[in-house]
């Protein structure tokens, strides 16, 4: 990343950390928490869905892993801050299983398999109350004792900063190039010596880990989780939509997507109460028909086209001059 861009990014995150000085109400801090949480989740999904081009619609599996680890492990004497770490490990284990089976499938089969795995986990959580509290749900201890909403907000900002940093590093590295090759054409990727199966799994591990941390934070803030909330298709969809709307395969995309989606969602919740699914649906259709590259992606393409048009113009002028 260029020097100036690094400073801008660091500065922006510093500003975000200072926001609680201005925004005080619990409600607003929770909204901002959601914005940053989904920005982080979107960035995590983006590694697999955007850069590697693998449409996972089952990321709730990893989110739920983090949330349930946070809920269950402290009962066994695990310290509060170790629980999310173990949640990450659990999510990575799920990723190994899910990826191992699903990555062998191409196209829509892959997406369906990811949905199936997440749904199996949700149903297991619902039907095994002795382990997970079942449908009724389970309590989650809070990571923070004081200034709860502000602390969770700051944690979400930090998670987003980490996810952003990981994304930027990946996009410039050999690993990132390999992911993009896999996205464009797996046969070509194989032919240049890329171990596509292993590379996809590595991306999924990274993605699952960050997602699990998000799940742990979410559960810990709201103090109570149910399977239909943290292991649901809705969560998987929301994560994917955030990244796709903002621009899959870009670093800024998921952040922008989360800001747009979550603010639209909040606005409509207050005005239209129950219409948030309708908003998601409309946004998806809009993205597919008008903005297939997402907001940031479309802007990038437009800028690139302007650049090559400007680069061609002087040459054309020179040719015209020499011809006349």
């Amino acid at each position: 990343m260029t020097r100036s861009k690094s400073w801008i990014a660091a500065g922006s995150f510093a500003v975000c950390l200072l926001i609680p000085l201005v925004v005080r109400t619990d409600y607003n801090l929770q909204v901002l928490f959601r914005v940053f949480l989904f920005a982080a989740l979107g960035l995590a999904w983006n590694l697999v869905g955007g850069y590697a081009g693998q449409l996972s619609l089952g990321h709730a599996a990893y989110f739920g892993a983090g949330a349930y680890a946070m809920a269950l492990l402290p009962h066994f004497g695990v310290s509060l801050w170790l629980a999310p770490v173990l949640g990450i490990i659990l999510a990575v284990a799920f990723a190994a299983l899910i990826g191992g089976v699903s990555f062998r499938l191409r196209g829509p089969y892959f997406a369906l398999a990811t949905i199936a795995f997440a749904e199996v986990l949700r149903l297991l959580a619902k039907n095994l109350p002795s382990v997970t509290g079942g449908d009724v749900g389970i309590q989650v201890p809070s990571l923070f004792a004081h200034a709860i909403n502000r602390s969770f907000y700051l944690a979400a900002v930090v998670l987003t900063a980490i996810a952003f940093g990981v994304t930027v590093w990946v996009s410039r590295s050999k690993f990132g190039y390999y992911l993009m090759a896999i996205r464009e054409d797996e046969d070509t990727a194989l032919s240049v010596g890329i171990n596509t199966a292993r590379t996809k799994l590595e991306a999924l591990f990274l993605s699952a880990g960050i997602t699990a941390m998000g799940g742990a934070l979410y559960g810990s803030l709201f103090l109570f989780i149910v399977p239909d909330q943290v292991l649901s298709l809705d969560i998987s969809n929301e994560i994917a939509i955030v990244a796709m709307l903002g621009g899959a395969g870009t670093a800024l995309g998921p952040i922008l997507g989360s800001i747009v989606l979550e603010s639209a969602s909040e606005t409509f919740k207050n005005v239209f109460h129950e219409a948030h699914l309708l908003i998601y649906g409309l946004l998806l259709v809009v993205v597919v028909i008008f903005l297939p590259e997402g907001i940031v992606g479309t802007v990038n393409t437009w800028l690139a086209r302007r650049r090559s048009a400007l680069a061609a113009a002087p040459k054309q002028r020179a040719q015209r001059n020499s011809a006349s």
Partner: protein
Amino acid sequence: MALLELRRTSKKFGGLVAVNGVSLAIERGEVAFLVGPNGAGKTTLFNLIAGMLHPDQGEIFFEGRDISRARADRATKLGIGRTFQLVKPLRNLTVLENVMLGAFLHTSSTSAAAREAGRILEFLQMEDVAHLPALGMPQAKLKRLEIARALATRPRLILLDEVVAGLSTSEALALADLLARLREWGISAIGGVEHVMQVVMRIADRVLVLDHGTLIAEGTPEEVVQMPSVIEAYLGPKYKEFTQ
């Protein structure tokens, strides 16, 4: 020890025998061409050597190692590079980035890969388009991009499937001259070609003729072009008498 050796290699797709008991050997420093009408099995043979397919019968050896069951990425790591008949550029990346993918096989540094890719593009006279997206490049440039990307993996054997197809005669001959220089780099090559015989005559050390999956002739270009079996395969039995 031959660089590449196939022993009685066969591959079937359902009822269709695509490759039928082919045995051949390529030596170091050789440029060989597989020649044959459409459907003769050239691409299947390339896919077998490159690891995208595995033979039903027979073995494939590269530098003495049995690679019959090796997957495509392993074959590349062992030193076999390839281009595809239908070019597969990675459209959303630039020409340079496409080639860098090949270079990453031997380095983890983005800058080193970029330098190596730049060098190879210079050799192929493509520096001027290095930073343009691969999407929308003309066919002649895309063919060179395919070769550049394969060369970046530092192969000791490169498979060039129909590498001059779709090019005008002058483009094809220009590319052929470049390919002739591969020997300088210590790279052996197997080309696959249907009908652009000028290229074959110009740079091939040896020609192998495939017909319906079977190897029917082998020799220098001059020898092969006169063999009755080859003429019959290409033009039909009626023309066989012209050689006698």
